[in-house]
């Protein structure tokens, strides 16, 4: 075992990874099941003389991030589903103003207040631009505490590189469970690049004024801005796709699942193997951009797909878009905070294969 491997809750590992990535400001509001993250940041950000504020609402928290990000500082917020809904206004503004930030959703079941158990019911909201207007932002879905830490750390770099919010879409299970994790190295704040577009420090360079804003009342200009942003989205779609494939080549049926559901599918695959049945897993890690092209390739090879989700069927729409009717796509989901079991997922795969 590496000496630096620590046993941590997902929520805490996300917090520590953010601090190590150079997060200078955290703003949050209490909501289960992500409270350990806010508490972790309170303790460790304040101890390092960085900014931590328990805001009066999620609405305020995201706008504090907006202000901090506008100065070029690495900053973040976290919440769970109902709180993320409240942040959507701010996320739309951040996308309109091209502000980098990290937003963590430790998702719970809905709609409404719903329950506090894990869910993947926020897929649509996360990947379709959950607020008003034409926009997208990166969405990364970890399957383990280690990956939650790694993706959070990387999210700060991606946010800066692409000047957009990056969302970590976890769920209550990943937030609450403990696993071993090796944390990434601590970044020196002074080593982080200065952002030429940010507000403040004008005296250093006597540059022209910087205005961080999303408003533009001239239709032709706003259209041009949106088109420029979408050209950037195209670049992201070709360079930031992330996915994992397990046993896809041998398998007749390929599970498509992310996060916790993917772990369940891996368990079902092990059990299938013991029974002499080859199943595969295609696990999108970037939910936006979604790896459509690779799924289309697999469809062309004659695979059939079973999208397994902790929802009533959301990502399955992307899977169907990807395969364009060239392969059968089925769906199996549990919702309301119920996590599917390996046994029931395997049973569904067998039913579909008639084996």
């Amino acid at each position, binding site marked *: 075992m590496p000496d630096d491997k620590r046993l941590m809750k997902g929520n805490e590992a996300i917090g520590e990874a953010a601090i190590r990535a150079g997060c*200078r*400001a955290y*703003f949050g509001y209490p909501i289960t099941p992500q409270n350990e993250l806010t508490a972790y940041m309170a303790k460790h950000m304040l101890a390092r003389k960085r*900014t931590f*504020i328990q*805001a*009066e*609402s999620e*609405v*305020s*928290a995201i*706008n*504090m*991030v*907006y*202000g*901090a*990000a*506008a*100065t*070029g*500082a690495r*900053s973040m917020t976290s919440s769970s589903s109902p709180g993320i809904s409240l942040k959507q*206004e*701010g996320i739309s*503004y951040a996308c309109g*103003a091209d502000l980098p930030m990290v937003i963590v959703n430790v998702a719970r079941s809905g709609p409404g207040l719903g329950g506090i158990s894990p869910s993947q019911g926020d897929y649509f909201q996360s990947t379709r631009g959950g607020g008003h207007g034409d926009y997208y932002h990166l969405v990364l879905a970890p399957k383990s505490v280690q990956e939650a830490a790694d993706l959070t750390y990387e999210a700060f770099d991606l946010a800066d590189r692409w000047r957009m919010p990056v969302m970590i879409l976890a769920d209550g299970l990943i937030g609450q469970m403990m696993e071993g994790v090796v944390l990434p190295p601590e970044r020196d704040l002074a080593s982080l690049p200065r952002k030429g577009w940010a*507000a*403040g*420090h*004008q*005296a250093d360079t*006597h540059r022209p*004024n*910087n*205005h*961080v*804003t*999303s*408003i533009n009342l001239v239709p032709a200009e706003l259209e041009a801005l949106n088109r420029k942003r979408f050209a950037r989205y195209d670049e992201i779609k070709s360079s930031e796709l992330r996915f994992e494939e397990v046993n896809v080549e041998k398998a007749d049926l390929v599970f498509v699942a992310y996060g916790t559901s993917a772990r369940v599918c891996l368990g079902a695959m092990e059990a299938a193997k013991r029974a002499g049945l080859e199943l595969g897993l295609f696990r999108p890690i970037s939910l936006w951009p979604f790896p459509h092209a690779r799924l289309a390739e697999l469809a062309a090879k004659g695979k059939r797909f079973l999208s397994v989700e902790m929802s009533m069927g959301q990502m399955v729409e992307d899977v169907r878009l990807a395969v364009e009717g060239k392969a059968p796509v089925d769906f199996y989901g549990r919702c309301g905070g119920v996590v599917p079991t390996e046994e029931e997922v395997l049973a569904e795969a067998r039913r579909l294969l008639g084996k």
Partner: protein
Amino acid sequence: MELAYGHPKSLKPVQSKYCPGCGHGVIHRLIAEVIDELALQERSVITNPVGCSIWADLYFDFDSVQPAHGRTPAASTGVKRMLPDHLVICYQGDGDLAAIGTAEIIHAANRGEKFTTIFVNNAIYGMTGGQMAPTTLVGQKATTAPEGRDPAEAGMGYPIRVCELLATLGGTKYLARGAVNNAANVRKTKQYIKKAFEAQMRGEGFTMVEVLSPCPTNWQMQPVEAEEWLEKNMIPFYPLGEIKNELGGAETKEAAK
């Protein structure tokens, strides 16, 4: 020869889009003059609200951040926490501050955030076209109060005195109310702004200057008439002066109060 009067450096030499008789232009100028006097032009950031003054970045010659409606104090919190040695101005109208952003201003003030809010109170929604504001006076007409603000029968509530409301909070150190309807009040308002900015740069706590400001267009008056209306109707309800002054140093207290 000394230049006795000129255009402030921190304000661009351009014509504004504000209506004739609007108070924003004067208030912008006061802010710019004080920034020049404190030599903070390249160390200032303003957060502009949704409302008529959303265009303030066309006029102020320094950096700006423009957040969502009412969220200006939250955004200013983020800006100031990251730039503690900068002058951060949270410019807000009455809809932004006292309606949609009530939670944000109360909690920013209560945390003692070390920026200065310039609260422009013209008792009406300007940009959207004359709707009732939280500060609209009882009986004052608006497109959404066509017979005048009626607190009881129509359930339209009462005008909010923001300075007095915030004065109870521990984080507020300086709350003053000025007006820009005549030269004397303009000069006084500038003193309040300067005191607030200086206090901010000393890191004393939350500071705010409320400015009673005419909106002839939406009040449906001529500019001169609007200034008189402000004097006769707004000032009696919204008394001018330092509503709260807990700044360190006796010299900062208003003289002969």
